[in-house]
């Protein structure tokens, strides 16, 4: 506008400006257009079914709404305030922690023992490795049903096996003290093989000469394990820990089938609470607020994982 006296120059500029708007697609090279076409369907679906609902969850966590009435009432942070002053939600956080620590502890320790065993030159170990891995691929809902039958306190197989050792069976899924251990056992049974297979890959990647060197230095079997195996496995251990945390936070089918969060909320994990508040109690606001809390947990752990794999890529190249 300051140069309004300079007419010819303005015209020239108008020409230049007009050209790119006409040919925005031409300015992008063929390759760029193909790039966009290739990634568009995926990104579009992410926009509609991942990013938009995520934003919507944040919004919904600030309203009170029964998912039916046409109006939502904006309540600000009241849902979060409710959750943190609510005994049931506190129980949910404790149950989530119990479930996660129990599952991960069991999976990582038993998985390591299984991997050490299957790393020995035993006949048939490949078959056992495959069998141990198999539960990972089975439907969580279906295997949970099998385990409910196994845990049956009257005629289940576990009652029988406990009987061999003179122990009597608790009423697993109806007893607030025993329901969570039962759920954790199923969870470990399902994820054990994944940990085993990853550990095995890690064990096989440890250079043999490290063990030789330790042997020359006079280290016994236990000391070789402490000073070679464990440190060399630590990145694998870290990877397994993070992925296990992520998957246990998301584990819904076992809880839904075996306990529905009960008895008396003893197995009500965060993901169950979200489902129950949203789809049974029809309380969209509280469900969304719990969702945001779950998301923040998961985000922290995923950032760990991404950081880990980034680092690994750098080491690799």
């Amino acid at each position, binding site marked *: 506008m300051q140069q309004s006296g300079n007419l010819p120059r303005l015209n020239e500029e108008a020409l230049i400006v007009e050209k790119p708007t006409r040919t925005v697609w031409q300015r992008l090279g063929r*390759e*760029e257009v*193909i790039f*966009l076409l*290739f*990634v568009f*369907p*995926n*990104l579009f*679906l*992410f926009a509609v*079914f*991942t*990013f*938009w*609902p*995520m934003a*919507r*969850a944040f919004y919904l966590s600030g309203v009170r709404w029964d998912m039916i009435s046409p109006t939502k009432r904006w309540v600000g942070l009241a849902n979060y305030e409710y959750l943190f002053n609510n005994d049931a939600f506190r129980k949910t956080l404790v149950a989530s922690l119990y479930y996660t620590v129990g599952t991960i502890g069991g999976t990582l320790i038993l998985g390591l023992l*299984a991997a050490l*065993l*299957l790393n020995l030159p*035993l006949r048939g170990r490949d078959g*056992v490795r*495959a*069998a*141990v891995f*198999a539960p990972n*691929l*089975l*439907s969580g*809902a*279906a295997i949970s*049903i*099998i*385990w409910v*039958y*196994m845990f049956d306190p*009257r*005629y289940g*197989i576990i*009652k*029988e096996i406990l*009987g061999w050792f003179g122990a009597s069976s608790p009423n697993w899924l109806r007893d607030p003290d025993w329901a969570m251990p039962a759920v954790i056992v199923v969870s470990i*049974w399902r994820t*054990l*093989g994944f940990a085993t297979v990853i550990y095995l*890959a890690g064990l096989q990647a440890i250079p043999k000469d490290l063990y030789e060197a330790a042997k020359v230095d006079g280290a016994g079997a236990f000391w070789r394990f402490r000073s070679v195996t464990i440190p060399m496995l630590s990145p694998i251990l870290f*990877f397994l820990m993070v992925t296990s945390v*992520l998957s246990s936070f998301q584990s*819904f*089918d076992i809880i*839904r089938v075996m306990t529905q969060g009960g008895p008396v909320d003893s197995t009500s994990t965060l993901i169950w609470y979200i489902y129950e508040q*949203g789809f049974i109690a029809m309380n969209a606001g509280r469900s*969304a607020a719990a*969702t945001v809390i*779950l998301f923040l947990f998961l*985000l922290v752990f995923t950032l760990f994982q*991404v950081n880990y794999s980034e680092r690994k*890529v750098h080491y690799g190249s």
Partner: protein
Amino acid sequence: MPSQGFLSRRRKAQLGRAVSYFMMLLLLMLIGVPVFWMVSGSLKTTQEIQAIPIKWLPTSLQWENFREAWNAAPFGRFYLNTIITTAFGSGLELLNATFTAYALAFLRFPRKTLVFVLILIALMIPDEVVVLPNYLTVAGIPFFGWNWINTYQGIIIPGASVAFGAFFLRQAFLGLPREVLDAARVDGCGHVRMLWDMVVPMARPSILTFGLISLVAKWNEYLWPLVVTNEDRMRTLTVGLTYLFDSEGNTEWGVVMAGTVFVLAPLIIIFIWAQRFIIEGITSGATKG
């Protein structure tokens, strides 16, 4: 530590081997017992199931349980629904993963980092977190004006985008021999032909591995199909099975176990056929980035 005990070194090694084989057997049983209990339960009569002390094996095979399960719930329909949602669901995932991976691996784009980061963010948002808002979207609440509850597209489309697979295949594509691909480029091979005729055949093992992982995941999917269906005729196998269990569990275990066999048998067959492949794929995905 020199072995001066009453066991010679050779004896000790033999004992160690025996203990190892015993532990391996124990491990195998730990994994196998639930599968055994399912199969044996599915072939028992109600009396045999409720017998105390327990009966390990049925005296006569009660195939009747399978017929009863098939009639107690529309399993034929569940199979059809699951096959449709699995085939299209993992098919779309595979296409999305392949195209996205090719673009990220080989194509120049000024904002490529942004695209990369967007997919990374999507990777950080698990499906469980967006179930409630996605349910609202799919149910057409409040302003989309469509309703996909109880439809195949409602089950399939929200899960058709893929982040893990895109990164997994990108990594595989980047590992392909660069000279061969460059030679094809020089010969004037276009990107679409390049993808289908060169990259896809060369990266076949990785694509198949991801395809199998995706297939199994879709077959087992539970929370989303549970939420977007409320009629028997649209339920998938996993969801239908748990409704059968809710109504018959704790009483008709023979029938429920027969239903469980319906759900697990195809998975077990696929696994026996492709286990080496799946395990190696997952291991390399975890340990090689």
